[in-house]
């Protein structure tokens, strides 16, 4: 037969491809050299601009070349056509690499700095088109945020767009995230927003409880609830009044209640000032508009400090969510996201027996999601500590013995504690520096806490007795205790390798108790 088609062999193909590649490489090197020559000559003309175009088209991530273009464009005072061309170049580059940081940035830069009449509406359409092709390109989502702001696109339209994207594939962190941004920016109507958003998340949860994206968004929705009060405790100790807050005091907030406003602070949760003699003084926290955000009488302690302010309407919705989560868990007992969200909701709403239920479900979570066991341990620690605080009207004697704690939370709330028993917990992964708030503590028990060292142990000025029995602390870290000047007694046992000599070096007025 004549003229039959013949298929090239793979070796021939490979050789041809290699030759092609080598040719390309030569060209690439030559062009790059050419551009840098232009730059070193200080060329800022059209020719110089042209020189980097081909290179960027094949590799849009050479930031230096983009910067050179910026230099040229700023000097050239470019015409409308040139700007068009520059934008077209970025478009072409983004086709090569849709996730090129520098190409996205350059496009934005041109529109903001060179283009006298940037058409942001066109950009928005472009983003829409782009996101329809690749719905999870976060570069484009980021760019869209900038663009939507520039062309003052109404929030409703953007929300509608994100909803559309979520409906076509809800496994889209960027789209959910943009929604949260839009709601935060709008600021109003938060309540009704939350209600409708929660039902959206619910739908995602039942469709695919193992997809994380919607759960994260739900956490943002619930997490946005502010705890109800600022002040945990106001007490006078040794002619100083102390104010212990539940969260950081915003910069423009003020504390009012005594003759002057010269409050000092330990950190932004502990405030204090010298006083002579005060009775029944009310301390207030006011915001920038002079509205009272919180107030408390001296020598009061607020046990309900961890309760949240939730409107009745939202409470109803959240309770409904709790019910539907329970149903979901009956169908999918191993869905960790459902389980975790259930715990978080339960803890937020605090219905009857919530604490026991939370602990029980956290236990389950540790079994089905062993990789995040420590995270759940820490969460449990927080819940347990908060629960202790909610159930005690004085912090003078704190007993957290055998709570299974792995981390410390709210240690500043124990500022006035004299005796703290933390024995039988697992503090092997904790940073002991958290104890820095226990400045009034005289007796601290860390017995059987799986400690292997005392690194970062803070200087506790009132500490007299520390119980360190049943730990395996290394010799080298005992020195840390030297910072506690009043320390009189260290309880150790023969499990420790520590020698009496070392201990003698730490505390002068030796009272080593070795049972």
């Amino acid at each position: 037969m004549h003229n039959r088609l013949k298929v090239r062999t793979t070796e021939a193909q490979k050789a041809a491809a290699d030759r092609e590649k080598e040719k390309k490489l030569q060209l690439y090197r030559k062009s790059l050299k050419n551009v840098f020559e232009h730059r070193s000559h200080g060329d800022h003309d059209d020719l110089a601009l042209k020189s980097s175009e081909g290179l960027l088209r094949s590799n849009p991530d050479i930031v230096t070349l983009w910067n050179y273009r910026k230099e040229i464009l700023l000097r050239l005072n470019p015409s409308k056509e040139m700007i068009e061309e520059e934008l077209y170049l970025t478009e072409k580059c983004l086709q090569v690499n849709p996730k090129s940081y520098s190409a996205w940035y350059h496009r934005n830069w041109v529109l903001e700095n060179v283009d006298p009449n940037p058409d942001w509406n066109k950009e928005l359409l472009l983003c829409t088109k782009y996101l329809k092709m690749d719905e999870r390109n976060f570069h484009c989502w980021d760019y869209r945020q900038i663009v939507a702001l520039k062309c003052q696109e109404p929030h409703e339209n953007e929300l509608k767009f994100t909803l559309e994207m979520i409906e076509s594939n809800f496994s889209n962190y960027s789209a959910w995230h943009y929604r949260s941004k839009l709601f935060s920016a709008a600021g109003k109507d938060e309540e009704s927003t939350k209600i409708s958003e929660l039902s959206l998340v619910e739908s995602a949860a039942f469709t695919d409880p193992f997809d994380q994206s919607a759960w994260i968004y739900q956490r943002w929705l619930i997490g946005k609830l502010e705890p109800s009060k600022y002040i945990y405790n106001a007490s006078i100790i040794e002619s100083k009044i102390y104010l212990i807050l539940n969260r950081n005091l915003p910069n423009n907030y003020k504390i009012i209640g005594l003759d002057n406003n010269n409050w000092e602070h330990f950190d932004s949760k502990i405030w204090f000032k010298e006083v002579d003699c005060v009775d029944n003084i009310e301390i207030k926290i006011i915001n920038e508009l002079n509205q009272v955000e919180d107030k408390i009488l001296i020598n009061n302690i607020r046990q309900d400090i961890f309760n949240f302010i939730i409107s009745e309407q939202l409470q109803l919705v959240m309770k409904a969510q709790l019910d539907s989560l329970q149903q979901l868990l009956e169908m999918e007992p191993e869905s960790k996201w459902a389980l975790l969200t259930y715990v978080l909701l339960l803890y937020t709403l605090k219905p009857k027996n919530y604490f026991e239920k939370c602990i029980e479900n956290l236990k389950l979570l540790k079994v089905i999601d062993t990789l995040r066991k420590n995270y759940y341990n820490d969460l449990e620690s927080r819940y347990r500590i908060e629960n202790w605080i909610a159930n005690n009207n004085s912090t003078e004697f704190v007993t957290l013995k055998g709570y299974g704690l792995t981390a410390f939370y709210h240690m500043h709330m124990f500022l006035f504690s004299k005796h703290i028993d933390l024995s039988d917990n697992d503090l092997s992964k904790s940073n002991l520096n958290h104890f820095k708030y226990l400045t009034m503590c005289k007796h601290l028990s860390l017995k059987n806490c799986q400690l292997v060292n005392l690194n970062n142990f803070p200087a506790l000025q009132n500490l007299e007795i520390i119980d360190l029995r049943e730990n395996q602390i290394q010799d080298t870290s005992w020195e840390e205790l030297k910072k506690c000047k009043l320390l009189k007694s260290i309880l150790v046992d023969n499990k420790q390798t520590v020698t009496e000599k070392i201990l003698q070096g730490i505390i002068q007025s030796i009272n080593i108790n070795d049972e």
Partner: protein
Amino acid sequence: MEDDLPSKYEVIVIGTGMTESIVAAAASRIGKRVLHLDRNDYYGGMWASFTFEALQKWLDECRNGKTEGSVKTSSPLVQDSEKSVTIGNQFSTVFNIEEKWFIPEKLPSVGNLLSAKNTQTEDSPKESKDKQNETEATLKYNDKLWCQAKLKSLGRKFNLDLAPKLLFSRGTLVELLISSNISRYAEFRCVNRILTWQSDKLETVPCSRADVFATKNVGLIEKRQLMQLLTLCVEYKPENDEFKGFEDKTLKQYLESKGLTENLMHYVLYAIAMSNDTTPCMVGVERTQRFLSSLGRYGNTPFLWPMYGTGELPQCFCRLCAVFGGVYHLKRAADSVIVENNECKAILSDGSRLDCDHLVLGVADAPPEFLGSVPKSGLSRGIFIIDRSISTTDKESLTLLQFPIKGKEPITVIEAGPSTHVCPSGLYLLHMTTKQIDNAINDLKPAVEALLHSEYADGTTSRIDTDTQATQTPKEGDSSATKTEFVIQNEALKPQVLYALYFNCPETSEYDLSQNVPSNVHLCSGPDLEVDYEFAVKQAKSIFSKMYPDSEFLPRAPDPEELSLEVDEAAGPPFQSSEEPKEE
């Protein structure tokens, strides 16, 4: 007769139906000399797509039968030891053809309308003004009214399929098109909507994750149940016990055991598993798996639809066959098959003897004695040209609906619009296919009555405007729309049938076609009942492997840049790459 065709081939294929074309391509691809004949002036046979005019011509031929050339029983080309077997008549297999128009031949002119109105009403200045407005409205409205003349004038914009079928996105045909590199010859569009008929109305079936998430038709618990069930089916492997005890039960019984709501049962059974009340459980599971595994590859449903109609597909394979040297001759009939000792030696065509090692024949062209007792019936088909979609949304949809019929096979309904280039804009094409029980009209009646407005429309009845119908649907809580009003309005929203065609044709997929043929003759079925092409591909593969057991079936065809032309003697024009050189 003068004939410049070479006279010796390794494979002669008669008929350009789907299976025949795949076999032709596969044989040509491995270097066999292939001759591919079709007596028609179009490709595809019973798999063809027609313009409106071509459809009319086809119908005429079916009604009249084709005039047969006188076939000589003895010919100098046939040796004594050989027997000449006359080829069959493709058109004698199409029955019960019913063609109906529902619109006038021509639209009444505006003048006529006006005078008709004049006789009814007394003139008063106010009315006359009203009338004027009315006339203007009519004039405008005429654009949206259809008559036979107008439809025929747009006849070239139709691609009316004799065998409408869809491709599973991960079905064997899609994989074959990709692996053989034939996909470059075709364009596809995703089916974007699966509908079902439940409680006397059309509902969109949530079949993908996104659908389940977005749908408001099912509750939260149902969403989970549905997803759980679908996951179960996707992940099912024979070694797990999920379906234990249901091996000899129906899918319906299994679904009932899972405590699904009626709503979900319906979606799963009729739409996703594409089954009915009697489908065995494991068959249903397999179908569900097939459905689900094709989801999300190209779109939100598992199906692709070929642009310009399904008739394009056989042509794609023919094109590959030709690229690798296959010889094509349309409008060329084979007259008889020459058989010796239960072996086909050659065919006679237009007075020439064409020798072959293998003969591949479509059933439509097969001599009656090769067919034996192959059934002459099987499929009930309906083609409807309608003036709007059966369920309008703001975007044009491409729809599959398995219309359930109690106790019987469902009616497969495919609706395609102008963007797939199968009909002019403003119209939709509705295909119905089901198993023949009685005849096409009666078999398809339930779906036609439920979905379509098939009364004669004289072109003056005011119909709700297609463009605005979406906004006309009464909103929930709209107190003014009582239930009766809603039903009436619904009736008015149904698409008007402009033209309907019914016919029956044979379905031979369940019949062993190798029973009565010479050893090297291979018969190919016509279109089968299933919605996809699995059967045709499977049959083509098995025919190919019978002919060439040791050769690869349609290996990847090289791209133009991978080819070089080997020139022996007289050099032809150099081979030119059809693709533009790539940008640097």
